[in-house]
Every structure is written in C-alpha cells, then in structure tokens.
C-alpha cells in the first residue's frame, strides 16, 4: 500500500513532506488525546518491567474521585466537585467513554486523511469493503457494543466505583470513611463489605443504583459477599476478553496456516490435516474442555491469570478445526487462481506466495468467523465458571456471578444473576452482528447461512 513502490513515485515520508498540513493537524489531535491518558500508558508499560512509575493521568479516579462520604448536612466530601458519589462516578464513566469514542473517531479520521492525501493508489478493493461497512446498521451496532465492551475491559480500573484491589483482592488493607449517627467513622473495606451483602432479604440487600450503609455507590448492586458488582463485572470483562482474544488469536493463526498449507500443497498434507481436524471436531467440545481444565488444573500454566491463560490455550487447541474448516473453502478457491500458478512457475518461494498472494484473501473470512466464535467462547468460559471449573476465585468472571446469584433470582437480589446474563447476551449478540457486518462487507453475495454456523452453534448459546 505505501512506500514500497520502486517506481518513480515518492515514499510515504516524502509524500507527507509535500503536503504536511493534513498530517500535522491529525498528529496534533492525536497527541492531545494521548496526553490525557499518557500517565496510564506509562504506568502499564513500566509495570511490565518492574515497579510501575506513577504519573497522574487526567481521566483517572484520582482526578475525578467518587469515594467520598456525605456529611449529615448533606454535603459530599472528597468527591469530585462535591457531587454525590453516584454522580461523580457517572461523570467519570461518561468522560471515559467519550474519550474512547473520540479516540476511535480520530483514528478513523487519520485513516481517511491517509486515504485522501497520502496513499499511492486512488482506490483499492478495501475501500469498497469499508464503504459497505459504513452503511451496515446491524454491523455498526455490533461494532459499537463490542467497542464499549473492549473499553470496559481496558479501562476497568478507572471505570468502577472502586478498584479490584480495594474491594475484591485486599479489602482489609483499605479504609473507608462514612458518617453514621452524626459521627465520622472509619472502617476497613472488608468490614464494610460484610455489612453490604446482598442475600435475598430486603433488609440485607444492595440493589442496582443504590448506596449502601457506608455511603458507597453501587451501580450494579453488590454480590452476596458484599463486594461491588460493577467492579466485579468490569474486571470480569477483562478476563473474558483476554481469553477470547488469545484463544481466537492462536486458533486463528493455526487455522490460517493450515488452510494455506493444505490449499497450496494439497495431497497428503491435506489428508493428514483433515483427519486430525475431523477427529478433534468430533470430540464433544465442552466436555473435553472441562476434562482438560481439571486435569491440567494443577500445572504451572494454570497459575497465569488464575487459569485464564490455560483456558485460552485449551479453547485454541480444540477450536482451530472449526475455524480451519471455515476458511478452507476460500483458501482452496484462491489456490485455484492463475496468479498462484504464475508465481509457482517463476520459482517464487512457497512461503512468500502464501503470505503475499493467498493470505489477504482469506483474512476477511477469518475475521468473520473469528468474530462469531468469540461470542461462543465468552459463553463457554462463563459456563465453566458457573460450574466452578473455569477461572478460580478470586479473579472475577461473569459466569461465577451467575452461580453466586442462583439462589436469589426470585428475591430482591435478582440482580446478581440477572445482570451478568443480560450482559453476556448483549456482548455475544454484538460479536455476531459484527461478524455479520464484516461478512457482508467482504463478500456481499455470500449466503446468510453457512456450514460453519454449525461450528458457531457448537460454541454459541448451547454451551
């Protein structure tokens, strides 16, 4: 696309130098946006290598705090601008999402600027695909919800009313202040949690959008152990997203590699992969995942992310045949094209042929099926945690929330089981919608139902 033309045309850098204004304007905006969150990025990056460096970020909970308390006079102390805790939290959440959407929009603008001013080609087939996406309402709906889900996972520490450390992992090391009977009290968060449990009884329940007795705001209520559910869900979003992305990434890579190899070499390679793939596909997937997660539960891998990484690997290992089957068709089609023969005839190395000529064509399809499978994985992981087999406590996971709230569905604590379920339905539907959108963009003539829907059915709502 850019800069690799060895004809007389200029490289990207030179083209930018020619008309610098659009690029400079865009870079200025990007820099401004980055500054807002620079602290968090630096924190995360340095955290990987040792003790994180603490630079204040504009959108963090320190700048817009909501952990204050209300004096008997009705004034809120230690919250942002003296707003009530709930309002301060809502304000921060809105700001974060606004920021995220602006960043996304700015990146989109950057792509448009590039396309208009700096790209060598006037038009590529990808432009048509992008244009089709722009008009696809259902796909856009999916994209927006998925984006919001990803933002929730990425910004989890800043989004919740409290943090995971404060309320879930280490509640007895933190303190909260509140007014009781006109006096300013101070207890540990752990004690406060014990007093805010939701256990079905209207006296002992903190429902959605309520304050508990300690002046803390709970947008989603609390769970039976008294911890804040929104924080739980946001952290759980991180886990689900992580497992989903890692497993899809790995299985997608394997599926693509196998598809290209079998399409290019055909013959024996194809036969071997077919037999292996079919055999793995015929194992009842959920049962096998359960078995593996228990058997390997004691190994060192399962300590990474409390079993999250292990689960991702297991899903990848059992899932690649479905993805492979889906892209096998397009890969074979591309292998039949004449330019592949042409490449072979002038001695092009197989690896380069596959990378350069075949891979781009199956990438679109891979994205479609990957997106749809992601939803299924989220449901499956939730199902495992529901049974107690997946992510081990205390790492939050949506399925476990449903399990915890099982007994209270018909009581005043219905929110514990209900809200995670609704969120799962929303996110999975969004992933499916996104997949639909990408598929219509990549191949507008493809049918609505495809053979791999059997595969997604296997990982989807039935799990």
């Amino acid at each position, binding site marked *: 696309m850019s800069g690799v033309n060895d004809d007389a045309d200029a490289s990207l850098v030179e083209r930018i130098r020619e008309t610098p204004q659009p690029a400079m304007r865009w870079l200025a905006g990007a820099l401004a946006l980055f500054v807002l969150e620079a602290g968090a990025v630096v924190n995360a990056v340095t955290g990987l290598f040792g003790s994180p460096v603490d630079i204040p970020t504009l959108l963090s909970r320190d700048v817009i705090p909501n952990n204050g308390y209300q004096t008997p006079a009705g004034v809120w102390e230690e919250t942002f601008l003296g707003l009530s805790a709930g309002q301060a939290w809502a304000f921060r959440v809105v700001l974060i999402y606004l920021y995220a959407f602006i960043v996304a929009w700015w990146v989109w603008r950057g792509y448009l600027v590039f396309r208009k001013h700096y790209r060598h080609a006037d038009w590529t087939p990808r432009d048509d695909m992008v244009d089709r996406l722009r008009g696809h309402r259902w796909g856009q709906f999916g994209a927006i919800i998925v984006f919001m889900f990803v933002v929730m996972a990425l910004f989890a520490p800043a989004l919740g009313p409290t943090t995971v450390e404060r309320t879930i992992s280490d509640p007895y090391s933190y303190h909260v202040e509140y007014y009781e009977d006109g006096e300013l009290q101070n207890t540990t968060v752990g004690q406060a949690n014990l007093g805010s449990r939701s256990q079905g009884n209207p006296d002992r329940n903190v429902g959605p959008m309520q304050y508990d007795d300690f002046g803390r705001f709970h947008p989603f209520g609390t769970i039976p152990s008294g911890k804040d559910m929104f924080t739980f869900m946001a952290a759980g979003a991180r886990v689900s997203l992580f497992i989903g992305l890692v497993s899809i990434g790995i299985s997608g890579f394997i599926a693509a590699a196998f598809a290209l190899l079998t399409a290019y070499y055909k013959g024996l390679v194809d036969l071997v992969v077919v037999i292996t793939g*079919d055999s793995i596909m015929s194992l009842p997937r959920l*049962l096998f995942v359960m078995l593996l997660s228990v058997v390997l539960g004691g190994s060192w891998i399962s300590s990474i992310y409390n079993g999250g990484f292990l689960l991702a690997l297991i899903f990848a290992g059992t899932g690649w045949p479905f993805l492979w089957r889906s892209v096998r068709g397009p890969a074979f089609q591309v292998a039949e094209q004449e330019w592949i023969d042409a490449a072979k005839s002038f001695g092009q190395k197989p690896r380069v042929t596959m990378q350069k000529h075949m891979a781009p064509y199956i990438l679109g399809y891979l994205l479609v099926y990957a997106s749809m499978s992601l*939803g299924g994985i989220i449901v499956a992981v939730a199902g495992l945690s*529901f049974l107690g087999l997946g992510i081990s406590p205390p790492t939050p996971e949506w399925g476990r929330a*449903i399990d915890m709230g099982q007994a209270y*569905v018909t009581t005043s604590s219905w929110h514990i089981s209900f809200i995670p379920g609704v969120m*799962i339905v929303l996110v999975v*539907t969004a992933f499916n919608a996104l997949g639909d959108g990408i598929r219509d963009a990549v191949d507008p003539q493809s049918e609505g139902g495809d053979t791999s829907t059997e595969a997604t059915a296997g990982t989807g709502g039935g799990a």
Partner: protein
Amino acid sequence: MSRWRYFAKRVLLSIPVLVFGASITFLVIRAGPLDPVSAILGPQGDPQAYEAIERRLGLNQPLWQQYIDYMVRLFTFDLGQSWVVQPNTSVYELVLSYAPRTIWLGFWSVLIAIFIGIPLGFYAGLNPNTFSDYVASFGGIVWRAMPNFWLAVILMSVLSQSEKILFGFDWEAWLVPTIVTGPPPLPDPIWGLFTNPDQFLRALKKIAPAAIVLGSASMGNEMRIGRTAVLETINSNYIETAKAKGVPPRSLVWKHIFRNALIPLVPIITGEAFLLIGGSVLVETVFDISGIGFLFFQGITNGDMPLVGSLMFIFILLVVVINIVQDLLYTIIDPRVGYDGGN
C-alpha cells in the same frame, strides 16, 4: 459412485476418528499430570494401599502397555468401574441408571427444536420482511446469544415461585404435582411410559423446563438457517420453472421448496445433537437431573478417572453415531450426494 457406497465410505471413515478420540482421551487421563490413585485414596493413604490400587488399575505397567489394554477394553465394551463417585459400581450399571434421564431430556429438546424452530424458520422465509419475520428473526438472534445455564437458572427460579411471579399460576401444582428440580420419574421398565398416561405426563412435565431451555437454544439457530434456506430456494431457477409449469402454491411449497430447504438444515439438526451432549451438563446441574452429563461432571471434579475415561468414550461413540445418522439423512434426502464428491 452411488449414494450408498458413499454412505458406506463415510461409515468406514468414522472408525479412525473413534480410535483417535479414544487415544486422545487416554493421553489426557493417563499421561496427564493428574494422579488417579491419589484421587481415589484421598490425600492420606498408606503406601501399601496405594500400590495395591495402582496394580489393580494397571498403572504400574509401561505406558504403551496401558494404552493397548485400554483400547482393547474399550472396544470390547468393558467399561470398568467407578472408583470415587460410586465405588465398586460398574460403569455400565451407572450408565444404565443415569442415561435414561438424559435421553428423555435430549429427546424432548430435539423435538422442541425441530418442531418449533424449523416451522418458524420456514414461515419466516415464506413471508420475508414482514413484521412477524423481523420479530422472529430478532428473537432468534438474541436467543442464540443466550447462555443456556442462565436461562435455566431463571426459569427454575421463576417456576418454583410461580405463584408470586406468574400472577398466581402455580406451575408445581399444574396438571400433575411435581417439584421443579430433581430427576424425572422414569418408570422401570421404560415402556411403562407408554402404557400409563399419568406417569408419562408426570415425567414429561418434570423434564419440560430443562427441555425448553436446551431446545430453545438450538431453536434460534434452526430458525435462522431454515429461513435462509427457504429464501434461497424460493429464488432459485427451478422454482421459477415450476411456477411457469403452473404448479399450484401448495404443491410448490410442500414438494419443491421443502425438500430442497431441508438439505442445509441437516447439519444443523445433527449439530444440535452434539450440543446436547455438552450442554446437558449445565442444565442437568441446575435442574438437578441426575443424568449422564451430571455424572461426568461429578467424575471430573472427584478425579474418578476410570469413570471419566469410559464415559468419554461413550460420548465420542455417540458423536460418531450422530455423524453417521447425518450422512444417512443426506443420502436419503439429496440424490446428488457422492456424485461430485458430496458435500
């Protein structure tokens, strides 16, 4: 190659799949890091008992020897015993007592999915872009995304307190008295079901919520695929030819559209059967139906590896059989099968 030779070929091909699946199970169980003997004995066991059990399980033999023994036993249907969940009971007995409940559940789930999902999908395909089509399609999409264990939890809770929530309708007392959770009372011998309508009704009502949960999950998919299949068939050239011949609409739908639209549905229907094998674990747990999925779950959490290994083999066998059924259905419905290599 004729249709039936193609079918025979597929049956033959399923044997290596069975072998491969069993082998993987063996690998996971025996070669994995879990120690079955400790699971059986518990954390404190004296070394003598440990060795005794090890010998009985054949675990002191070299791995390849164990593998051969394992495969031979499985294929002669010697399923061994359970050691932890119900010690000294043969797996065969356990299966016999647990399986019928799962079969009852599976039967009704598939029925619900097929006889509600497919007609709904066909209706939507025959009347596309109407309001009811949109409602049905949207419902199907959302339903597909729903985790079935969540639906099970909600349904179970609502039904057990139905007087409060469903405006006084008491599910538990309706028709025949049952409680929401617990295994369905299946009479022994099993054909007592058909001779005694009261028992039949009782067993049916007991399993209904679970079957609705499992069935409706697949229903969404079948509806969607059915709708697409009908839409594609309607727009195909041979339907236009039939119209040009003067074929009346009834015959058009039932003779021409139906059979062609069923073809893409076959893998979906059999796909649902796979789901049952896995998904039943969750539903059985919630509704406390002591079915075979629940047994498997118990086996895993208790580390009862001999039980788990044999059960896994049964499941794999089931999957292979379902695949063969799918191929059989294809062979019957679609005369093109095997002609150009099949699907």
